[in-house]
């Protein structure tokens, strides 16, 4: 049965169905509906909803709840995510699973509340201090947002790596019919023998990201990076649309990916051989599939709601095998399909 939900609400409901039982937040637009939904629904499922005094406190509460072995989430938008970066680095260092939702708005600074994709670097290249990565998943529809939230909890638990959903204001606010995923039976959540549950009949567990000895710490980080390499092998996700015969492929994620799908349909109607490559996992980034595409497609046009952040990964993937022009908008301006199509026409002939 399909229900009509906003992206923010669908992500909240999906989190509850994924077994999230502790949610900590601080209000910010454009993800307010997610907070409100959790406030109304999570306690009814026996979960903890807590509005913290700041994003800093909220992410550290997530750290505590994750350490206690509970599925936990926080959500925010760009300026709030900046404040969470310290805690996210600690989560990564302490190998704690947690889900962080970023419903991006335009920045830097206070910016505005319009949809944007300017937090790509922050999400995929670190953001907080130190040598770590987050699993980063970018939905482009409300349906996919719900599914990726469920997946984020599973991956985060499986690898003990925090996962981020990188959405934007448009996806958060948009209403669509959704087929909600079935709730996860509690037995499907993997056991967490490392969690802080009291040192009864076992040696004490310690959740920490600290080791003064560089050689020991190096081993800890090597083990962490071995996990990251495993994630890179197993968890790359992307979608290709009409790429088989394409002369130009648009590379776009999230809301931009969705708009570019419309662009592909219009271009095809005009007889232009245009396709779409849409990364779903932004980390691990689909370098290999994109490289394969670049072997046979002469132009890969990256389109983003930023000055060109994912574009750097596209160029890393392509390494000169194809042309890699860029088209982006700034400040929360969302380009129309027509505008993108006229950009496309600069590179392909009908």
């Amino acid at each position, binding site marked *: 049965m399909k229900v009509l939900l906003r992206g923010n609400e669908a992500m909240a409901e999906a989190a509850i169905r994924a077994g999230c*039982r*502790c949610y*900590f937040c601080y209000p910010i637009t454009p993800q307010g509906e997610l907070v409100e939904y959790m406030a109304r629904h999570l306690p009814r499922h026996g979960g*903890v909803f*807590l509005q*913290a*005094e*700041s994003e*800093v*406190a*909220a992410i*550290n*509460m*997530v*750290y*505590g*709840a*994750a*350490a*206690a*072995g*509970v599925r*936990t989430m926080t959500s925010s938008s760009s300026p709030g995510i900046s404040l969470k970066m*310290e*805690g996210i680095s*600690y989560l990564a260092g*302490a190998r704690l699973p947690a889900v962080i939702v970023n419903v991006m708005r335009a920045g830097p600074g206070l910016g505005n509340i319009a949809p944007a994709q300017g937090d790509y670097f922050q999400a995929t290249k670190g953001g907080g201090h130190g040598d770590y990565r987050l699993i980063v998943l970018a939905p482009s529809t409300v349906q996919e947002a719900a599914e990726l939230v469920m997946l984020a909890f599973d991956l985060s638990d499986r690898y003990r790596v925090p996962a981020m959903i990188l959405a934007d204001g448009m996806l958060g606010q948009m209403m669509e019919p959704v087929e909600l995923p079935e709730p996860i039976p509690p037995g499907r959540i993997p056991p967490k023998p490392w969690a*802080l*549950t*009291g*040192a*009864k*009949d076992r040696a*004490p*567990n*310690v*959740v*920490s*990201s*600290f080791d003064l000895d560089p050689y020991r710490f190096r081993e800890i980080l090597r083990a962490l990076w071995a996990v990251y390499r495993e994630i890179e092998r197993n968890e790359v996700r992307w979608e290709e649309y009409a790429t088989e015969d394409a002369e130009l492929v648009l590379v776009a994620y999230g809301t931009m990916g969705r708009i570019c799908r419309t662009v592909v349909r219009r271009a095809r109607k005009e007889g232009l051989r245009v396709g779409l490559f849409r990364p779903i996992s932004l980390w691990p980034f689909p370098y290999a599939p994109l490289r394969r595409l670049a072997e046979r497609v002469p132009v890969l046009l990256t389109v983003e709601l930023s000055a060109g952040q994912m574009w750097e990964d596209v160029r890393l993937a392509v390494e000169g095998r194809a042309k890699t022009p860029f088209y982006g908008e700034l400040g929360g301006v969302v380009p129309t399909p027509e505008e993108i199509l006229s950009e496309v026409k600069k590179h392909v002939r009908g």
Partner: protein
Amino acid sequence: MSVVETKVPAGFVPVYTRPKSLSDKRFTYCPGCHHGIITRLVAEAIDELGIQERTVGVAPVGCAVFLYEFFRCDFAQAAHGRACAVATGIKRANPDLIVFTYQGDGDLAAIGTAETIHAANRGENITVIFVNNQIYGMTGGEMAPTTLPGMRTVTTPEGRDVRTTGYPLRISEMLAQLDGPTYITRQAVFDVRHVQMARKAILKAFRNQLEGKGFSLVEVVAACPTNLRIPPAEGNRWVKEQALKYFPLGDLKVRD
């Protein structure tokens, strides 16, 4: 890290033994540091209440950062100042656990002021041990918000000038104004009598949590002889004669 071995000579009966909830790791504190006494008092309280198997500690960033090595309890190491938020997350996730934080004055009363005040104001059912040594011990003796007027530190080489750096922050008095907390007290450990009083206060702060009474905080006015650049044995006198002028001892809030 070295192991402390206690050899009992034949014919002697040990009366002062290591608390069960302490591991055999040697403390990393300097000679004369009050952290050592306070850490032990916490362990004694955990032993006395028989809660070691359900206690989770939250270690700060500061000289007590290795707390998780000293205790035989589950432990989380928190980011600087965030211990009360981390403790909130643990306790809310699993209310059956007994959760305590142990924090310095830089940790709790500077960078973690917001997390502390709001955990107290929510009446989180946790226990907070607050070691006020009026200085940033771990980083080498910089001014803390609790540093006494005129006190020399590496960042106030001419002594703390209240006109430009403010006054010693009495955060326990601030917290005592709130409706949220249950028990706020200020103690010290500079002589046997005060150690016994501090011990009772820490015990009460844990018992409150066991009884579901809410937020309890025990501030302990302490000495960091290393950064005061005084001999270890002088620390006690420093607390008694200098620090207590600004941090008077006693219960600030008790709700039974």
